[in-house]
């Protein structure tokens, strides 16, 4: 057994995350505990999707949270919601980490990647995020095959679009536009606004 009872992430960020971040920006450690609760589930999820390795993911997720604390005074609401900011940071960190170790193992990884392609099912079964996951899955299914592969390989596997192109044996330009088209369709399907 593990992780059985835990309040995890909500499908939508709690309404006061922005406010919490504003307090964190003023050095409020108590508010940071609230930020931690609100973001740790998705942060760890994003990092683990990209890195796979649990110990390493935990380490990077911790670094991300420390970075949130450290740079909260620079966060600007007009550039997007606090959750977007945090998850962008998390994804960026994970991608940096995976690319720094990747070069040497690129060959072996290629085969592994193709096998575990659009799965994205090895996520936890938390009630709170199930709805969100269902909606995202449904919208991913609505993409064309190439759009979906481009989006999931780039986002969940942390590949560059060049690597995606190589992996799928497609021209660079095709992957570039499919990745964009795919994200635009997802945006519309999920009703995202920014």
């Amino acid at each position, binding site marked *: 057994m593990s*992780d059985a009872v*835990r309040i995890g992430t909500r499908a939508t960020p709690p309404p006061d995350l922005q406010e919490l971040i504003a307090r964190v*920006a003023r050095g409020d*450690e108590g508010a940071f*505990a609230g930020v*931690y*609760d609100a973001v*740790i*589930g998705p942060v*760890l*999820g*994003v990092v*683990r999707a990209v890195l796979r390795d649990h110990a*390493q993911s*935990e*380490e990077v997720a*911790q*670094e991300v949270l*420390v970075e949130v*604390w*450290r*740079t909260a*005074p*620079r966060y600007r609401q007009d*550039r*997007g*919601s606090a959750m*977007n900011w945090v*998850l962008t940071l*998390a*994804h*960026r960190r994970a*991608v*940096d980490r995976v690319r*720094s*170790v990747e070069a*040497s193992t690129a060959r072996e990884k290629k085969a592994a990647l193709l096998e575990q392609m659009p799965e994205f099912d090895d*996520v936890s079964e*938390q009630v709170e*995020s199930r709805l*969100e*996951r269902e909606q*995202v899955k449904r919208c991913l299914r609505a993409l064309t095959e190439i759009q979906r592969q481009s*989006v999931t390989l*780039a*986002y969940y596997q*942390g590949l*560059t*679009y060049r690597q995606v192109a190589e992996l799928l044996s497609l021209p660079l330009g095709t992957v*570039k536009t499919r*990745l*964009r*088209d795919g*994200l*635009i369709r997802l*945006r519309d399907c*999920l009703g*995202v*606004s*920014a």
Partner: protein
Amino acid sequence: MNGAADLHTLTGAYAAHALEDEERESFERHLSACESCAQEVRELRATTARLGLAASVAPRPAMKDEVLRRIAAVRQVPPAERGPDGPPPKQRPRRLAQWALAACVAAAAALGGTAVWQYGQTQAARDQARQAEQQSQELAALLAAPDARTRAAKLSDGAGGAVVVAESRDRAAFVATGMAKPPAGKVYQLWFSDDGVMRPAGLMDPGRSTQTVLMEGPLDGAAGMGITLEPAGGSARPTTAPVAVVNFPA
């Protein structure tokens, strides 16, 4: 050859962090001048955040305390871009330390040819990109800090090393010269030592025997540092006996 029309289509790859460094940099220049791309990037970043939310997992409960303990020691950045604050540089006696430091870095550069000292040269660090850039700025600030102090260290088989510590920056760097290559699949990992407890402080580049590495994380009163050989990607705790342990200069 990258026309503007071509650049507009990079919003998706940019939002998903799927650009290589050079392309990312040129797209960021474009972004600052193209409002429609900037808007699209905001929307697509909000979209990728939804992909992130959908991947949520439950963390190990003890992680929370660990993180809260860590942040208690981390200084926050000032709100906006301000000029450097704090008192003006002072004091003669520090000079010596800086000279020693300069010599040490020069030695690193001479031996390896690619020391991080050339922090402006992005070509040398292309593969480590932005991270390296930020690190080298921090590194430059650390090396130039008026209170930077150095301690040389001998490593096994003729390799040399030096730690540079600046309390005012709350950071440390490690300069390695002529270190043996780690075995395949292994890396040298740096640690801060707090009363014998090792705290992860980043990895060394396994491909270079001579390098200057900004140690990750704040000094936070650490008494020294250590280096161990770890599986690629590093470990949360040391899994082998240290190849070197160095006390920070008092």
